[in-house]
């Protein structure tokens, strides 16, 4: 945002700006805005279906929000618990994902390393993303089920003398979800970052090598600063995607977030309201909370990464 275009004397290009962004806003207004506005609007209403009978919409003010933040009998507030679950699951998957992706992107683009078989590796790491999440979860489920090969192997090796129920322990369920999300998305992130690195003017790398910089120095002094916008993008979209995590834990735990709802994510919670009862009131309120939370965290990420860039 630092660079300003030179202005030719007497010519204003402002109208082109409007023309170029017009299709986006038009399509947005037609296809996205109405349902999104309805979402917010619905959050102030009692609006659900019971069987085929529609109840509401009746205006209830902030009642849906109050219900969301009312502690249950044991004193814990569900939505906070699910927000915590979501963040834990996101961090567990996203941090290794971004680090590994960054490392791989550097491997693939380094002209000192000259990796052979790049086309093969790039295709392979993207494969898990092409398998539908539900099929991928099914495969993992059979692998780790009580009669699955992992349990058989552990028993044969003598590492365990009883069947381990991987889906009854918070740590292992969460671990599996993180692992699956990692596998499904690290290839994706690698490609993003790779495209970012490759977009950087190659002469800058040559210059830094001629100046005698080591590859580490080149990375921290040249690559990283120039990659920051893409890195910001990666972290923020990973955050948005992470807070909307749904399909993997949904399929793996059959929508229940077992054990004891410790792997229920915010969107699974939302989906519980949306599925049968079409409870647009509560679902709307949850989406607003998710929206605010994501916005808040995005601003934090944006600010902290942008500040690092300043000096």
């Amino acid at each position: 945002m630092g660079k300003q275009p030179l202005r030719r004397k007497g010519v204003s290009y402002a109208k082109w700006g409007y023309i170029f962004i017009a299709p986006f806003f038009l399509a947005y207004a037609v296809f996205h805005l109405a349902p999104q506005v309805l979402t917010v609007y619905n959050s102030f209403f009692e609006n659900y279906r019971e069987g085929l009978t529609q109840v509401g919409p009746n205006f209830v003010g902030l009642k849906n929000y109050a219900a969301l933040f009312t502690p249950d009998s044991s004193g814990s507030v569900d939505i906070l618990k699910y927000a915590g679950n979501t963040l834990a699951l996101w961090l567990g998957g996203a941090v290794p994902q971004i680090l590994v992706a960054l490392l791989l992107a550097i491997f693939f683009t380094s002209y000192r390393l000259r990796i052979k078989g790049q086309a093969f590796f790039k295709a392979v790491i993207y494969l898990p993303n092409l398998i539908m999440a539900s099929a991928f979860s099914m495969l993992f489920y059979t692998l780790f089920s009580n009669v699955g090969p992992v349990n058989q192997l552990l028993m044969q090796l003598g590492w365990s003398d009883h069947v381990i129920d991987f889906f009854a322990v918070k740590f292992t369920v969460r671990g599996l979800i993180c692992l699956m999300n990692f596998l499904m998305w690290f290839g994706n992130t690698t490609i993003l970052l790779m495209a970012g690195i490759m977009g950087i003017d190659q002469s800058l790398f040559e210059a830094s090598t001629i100046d005698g910089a080591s590859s580490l120095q080149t990375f921290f002094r040249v690559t990283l600063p120039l990659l920051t916008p893409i890195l910001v993008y990666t972290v923020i979209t990973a955050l948005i995607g992470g807070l909307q995590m749904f399909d993997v834990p949904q399929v793996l735990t059959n929508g229940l977030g077992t054990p004891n709802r410790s792997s229920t994510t915010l969107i699974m919670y939302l989906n519980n309201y949306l599925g049968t009862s079409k409870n647009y009131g509560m679902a709307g309120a949850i989406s607003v909370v998710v929206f605010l939370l994501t916005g808040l965290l995005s601003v934090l990420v944006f600010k902290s990464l942008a500040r690092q860039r300043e000096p």
Partner: protein
Amino acid sequence: MKHANTSESHKARAMLLATRAVVYAVLVFLSVLCLFSFYLLIVNASRSNADLQGGFRFLPQGNFLVNLKNAWNDASINIPRGMLNSFIVASCTALLTTYFSALTAYGLHAYEFKLKRAAFTFILAVMVIPKQVSAAGFVQLCYKFHLTNSYLPLVLPGVAAPIVFFYMKQYMESTLPMEIIDAARVDGSGEFYTFNRIILPMLKPALAVQMIFSFVESWNNYFLPALLLDKAELKTVPIMIAQLRAADYSKFDLGKVYMFILLAILPVLAVYIFLSKSIIKGVTAGSVKG
């Protein structure tokens, strides 16, 4: 710094070799992890329904061709038709999404105008809205306006894709020098011409990346198409897979399901390999320095 003596360059060579070894080890390890799930899919696609009920297997079985034949001949679905439909929807979506996102990003990157900051902030704000709920509202609107059995509601919303826009914007910020635009203007190039002929080629890696992503996302999209398309000749791959899964007990065949899931990956893989060739080095090399 000077490295005159040979022992140091030997050391550097050894370091490089060691690094390479580590790098290859990491790559092979990750590849094995990734290939393993794909391998399991192939194994499952080669097993009969009864065998699949029996639990896990490490080695492929002999039912591959039978499953292929059964899936291909299943009366309730038409695999080539589904693939063609999915391909049309996914490629249109990918093209529209990437082109208009780049256009929007360029509009906000290259021009100064009053509502620039406001427009940018707006798009970033709506980017974080969870899509699950608006999907339900969107379906209702489509029913209301009789937009069923049409690909338009699946494809056109792609014109406004905040996340793809954001990527394009960030990419331009790190790689697109303003001087190029000015140089083009001096040469008398019109604004659309500059964008289509000069800027877009420079964005090739970014376009390829986002095209892959939106293609894959659209290819695997089930919920919206399932609710909007009911004519058999319009159905896409995920609907057909779900239909195989929902088959009644006398016809249910998990082997067919896995076979179709496997088949459905191949076109996307081809598109991916084709597009990833565009993620190449040094597109901006030799341009004016910022």
